[in-house]
């Protein structure tokens, strides 16, 4: 059976195609302002990679902030539901999933089948999402993909007082002006963000193993700050940004855990 999962995220669109619960194709694109056109393109790309046509696909599940904007789908499913399914498939020992995307942060507790026991979402404040690190990379004039590695070189902890992305931008500009080393500022950025995610996760209570997914999981600086804050090592899957789409494709296949 061939199924497809589409994750219509705030910044990127991800597609995963499964054949008998095995990944045969995955594709990602930046959504920009032409969401529907980009969604069509990325779906085409995944289908050609898998060597399938739309007619071959038994079921399509769409998820993400813009789930209903997908060009076609049979069903939509909540992001937390897809996240936990995807995480349980990759790492069955998972009991807590943290998903930090471009505009949303989520924490959920689940069992080995990916069933949600409790969850918490932050979706309307940029300070707890990827948009925060993105804004900080602009303020620091350091490319986003270098911000993580830079923060690992920090020599000193500098406090960041602002809890709002806009105010934090001014604070960073002032720090740049005062010649605070950029690596220390980068760490301050990740520490601040990690402390917000940690509090969110503490609210639902968490157990090991903790799997971190979403685009921000690729930021090694954030991962290091989060590990320090949670006092454990989170597990970051190989393609953390695809886990939601994977979960959607698994949901389409009716996967309920296990091999």
């Amino acid at each position, binding site marked *: 059976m061939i199924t497809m999962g589409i994750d219509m995220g705030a910044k990127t669109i991800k597609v995963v195609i499964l054949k008998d619960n095995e990944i045969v194709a995955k594709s990602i694109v930046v959504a920009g*302002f032409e969401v529907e056109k980009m969604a069509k393109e990325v779906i085409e790309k995944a289908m050609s990679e898998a060597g399938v046509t739309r007619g071959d696909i038994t079921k399509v599940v769409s998820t993400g902030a813009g789930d209903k904007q997908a060009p076609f789908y049979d069903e939509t499913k909540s992001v937390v539901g897809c996240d936990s399914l995807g995480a349980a498939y990759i790492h069955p020992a998972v009991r807590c999933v943290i998903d930090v995307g471009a*505009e949303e942060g989520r924490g959920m507790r689940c069992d080995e089948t990916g069933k949600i026991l409790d969850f918490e979402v932050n979706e*309307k*404040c*940029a300070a707890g999402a990827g*948009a925060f690190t993105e*804004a900080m990379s602009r303020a620091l004039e350091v490319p986003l993909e270098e911000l993580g590695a830079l923060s690992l070189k920090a020599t000193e902890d500098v406090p960041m007082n602002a*809890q*709002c*992305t*806009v*105010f934090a931008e*001014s604070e960073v500009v002032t720090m740049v002006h005062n010649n605070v080393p950029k690596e220390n500022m980068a760490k301050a950025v990740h520490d601040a963000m990690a402390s917000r995610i940690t509090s969110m996760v503490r609210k639902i209570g968490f157990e090991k193993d903790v799997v971190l997914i979403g685009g921000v999981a690729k930021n090694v600086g954030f991962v290091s700050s989060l590990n320090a804050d949670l006092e454990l090592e989170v597990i970051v899957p190989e393609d953390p940004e695809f886990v939601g789409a994977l979960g959607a494709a698994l949901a389409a296949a009716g996967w309920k855990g296990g091999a």
Partner: protein
Amino acid sequence: MTEKKELWRWTESRWTNPDIDWKGKLITSGVDVGSVSSQAVILADGELYAYSNMRTGSNSPDSAINAINWAMEDTALTLEDIAYTVGTGYGRVNVPFSQRAITEIACHARGGNHMYGPTVRTILDMGGQDCKAIHCDEKGKVTNFLMNDKCAAGTGRGMEVFADLLGVSINDIGDLSLDVEEEPPPVSSTCVVYAKTEATGLLREGWPTNKVLAAYCSAMAHRIMTLLERIGVEKDFAITGGIAKNSGVVSRLEKDVGIPIMTTDYDTQIAGALGAALFAKALKDKGK
């Protein structure tokens, strides 16, 4: 009223009461060092004598000194003539010539009471980096308050982000936003970062600048309304701070609240410093 023109930012102002001879009178002052603007108010025997309102510089002590010096410019006063100074605002502990620091909440209530008269019960202060809703009694004593300085939505800083995005002077935003044939739906994101993304999308859809501004001013008014609802709005209702000068937000808020907003001839940004100067007088009289 003399005013310095700054096209790219809000307008600074200063004023001296020509009918007052300060000699032989008790001079007290209040200095409000905010994140964006600083004000100094000078009282002679408790009567408003002079004030200034200018941009905050890179550090609080210099901003406080600049503000008081500008307020004293047309007078023969020197710092030595001031018997008592109270500092307030974000940089209140960094006013070098002050004897005491008092919160903006207390000062805005006291200053609002003086500016708008004893009937004012609700004061909304919309500043550069915060928003305060205050209830006070007929003497200007705080009875209920709420302050939001954590989030840029609903603050002058949020408005600045939009001024930058749309290339419009912050002074013109209000009037431009009212120049629409039909009120557009408000921007749906509260967070300034997301609202900016949303506005960029609207511009791409072909919305003219004033329509986008209308959508943002209206979102800001709604947001402030929900903040006010937490403590309730009692008559009379007055607004202080920089955003009080933004007709686009004020007129929409007036509609949301359903109570007329009081007006004043004073610069609405001096309320905090005025309250501080009044506290300075009270503390001096009490010998504290």
